[in-house]
């Protein structure tokens, strides 16, 4: 059974008015994400990993030097699908309801969360990801290099932002901080965070 690329949860042009262009999706979803899926299928073909869930492949191959290629591609397939779901046209701003309460309780305020998330995303040196995770029952902001993700650290991922340069170079070039601000102000899908929290 081959791994499949999940469809985008919105039209590729849907975020165009909110600072993420259709052009970016043409490459980010159409080329980068697709290549990770294709590579993963090639690398796991006719192996026992081909029948595992994507999450299991990630956990099994993490830290195994002989399987680093499989880990990288599997984790990137998962990370990108999670990222598309972290986005919503006209999202962003402060959350409401239960998510707001959890953010306030963990960070003191939404502004403090924002500042920690911005800092994590801006200081992830090189390719990687910024995350909001649940760790031992508490919300926490983290960052990971390259393909690494919270699944391998025993955390529950709630929200992510891709800070590989391919995620923002066509729209923001070197201005990663502007890309991060735009995500927080116009794109964060708090419904997805609420769903992940409820399921945790």
């Amino acid at each position, binding site marked *: 059974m081959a791994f499949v690329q999940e469809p985008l949860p919105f039209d590729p042009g849907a975020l165009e008015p909110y600072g993420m262009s259709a052009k970016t999706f043409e490459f980010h979803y159409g080329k980068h994400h697709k290549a990770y899926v294709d590579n993963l299928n090639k690398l796991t073909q006719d192996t026992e990993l081909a029948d595992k869930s994507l999450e299991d492949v990630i956990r099994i191959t993490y830290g195994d030097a002989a399987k680093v290629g499989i880990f990288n591609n599997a984790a990137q397939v998962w990370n990108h699908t999670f990222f598309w779901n972290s986005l919503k046209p006209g999202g962003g701003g402060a959350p409401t309801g239960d998510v707001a309460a959890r953010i306030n309780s963990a960070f003191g305020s939404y502004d403090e969360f924002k500042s920690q998330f911005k800092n994590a995303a801006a200081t992830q*040196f090189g390719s990687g990801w910024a995350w909001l995770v649940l760790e031992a029952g508490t919300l926490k902001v983290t960052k990971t290099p390259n393909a690494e993700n919270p699944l391998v650290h025993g955390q529950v991922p709630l929200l992510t932002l891709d800070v590989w340069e391919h995620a923002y170079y066509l729209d923001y*070039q*070197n201005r990663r901080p502007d890309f991060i601000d735009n995500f927080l102000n116009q794109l964060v899908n708090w419904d997805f965070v609420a769903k992940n929290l409820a399921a945790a």
Partner: protein
Amino acid sequence: MPLTRRQTLGLLVGSAATLWLRSRPAVAEGEPSEIYTLPPLPYGYDALEPVIDAETMQLHHNKHHGAYINTLNKALTPYRQWHGLPIEDLLRHIHQLPTAIQKTVRNHGGGHANHSLFWQSMAPNGGGEPMGELATAIAATFGSFSEFQTQFQQAGLKHFGSGWVWLVLTPQGNLAITTTLNQDSPLMQGQVPILGNDLWEHAYYLTYRNRRDQYLEAWWQVVNWPWLSDRYAQMRALLA
């Protein structure tokens, strides 16, 4: 183009340099913002077109390289005894630096050193093949120049995420192809980088997008082999 004194100094190896670093008195020179400065490009921003577009060169030189220097200078400001040294020396002796600045020097100092070499390694009307001792050493190590190119491109394509692909001179005086993560410099491992290609997406995304393979292939057209052949001969002489 001969190597500058700064580049030659950056090659100091072994205990002499270590002693020199340790015995260096605290000096107060220049404004902190000028500890390191952005070296001007040795050609125009559009000089490498169509292989590397002018917008990429502007952003890469002014913004990316410029930002590495700004962050590096800011971190080094309180550490006056470490001012005024070639960045290559700080990288080579990274573990002797105060712990508080090691990471910044590794990332942003590495970025400064790597990019400084990168600009020099390219030229308009570049391409062709290495010459002299470098040509001989490449043929002896890899079998042929085209085999070296193939291996260099494969290593660059296979490297996951941000980083660099290098032709280095090992402490034993051999040539080798390596890759490093992010802005890590081969100098931190006692190697001398002869030639490096930038694998960060910012180096190629505007023109080549996801096709790193096409960038690696096209890049040979702008490689400055006369300068690199000269550099190799000088590095060898210093090791001898």
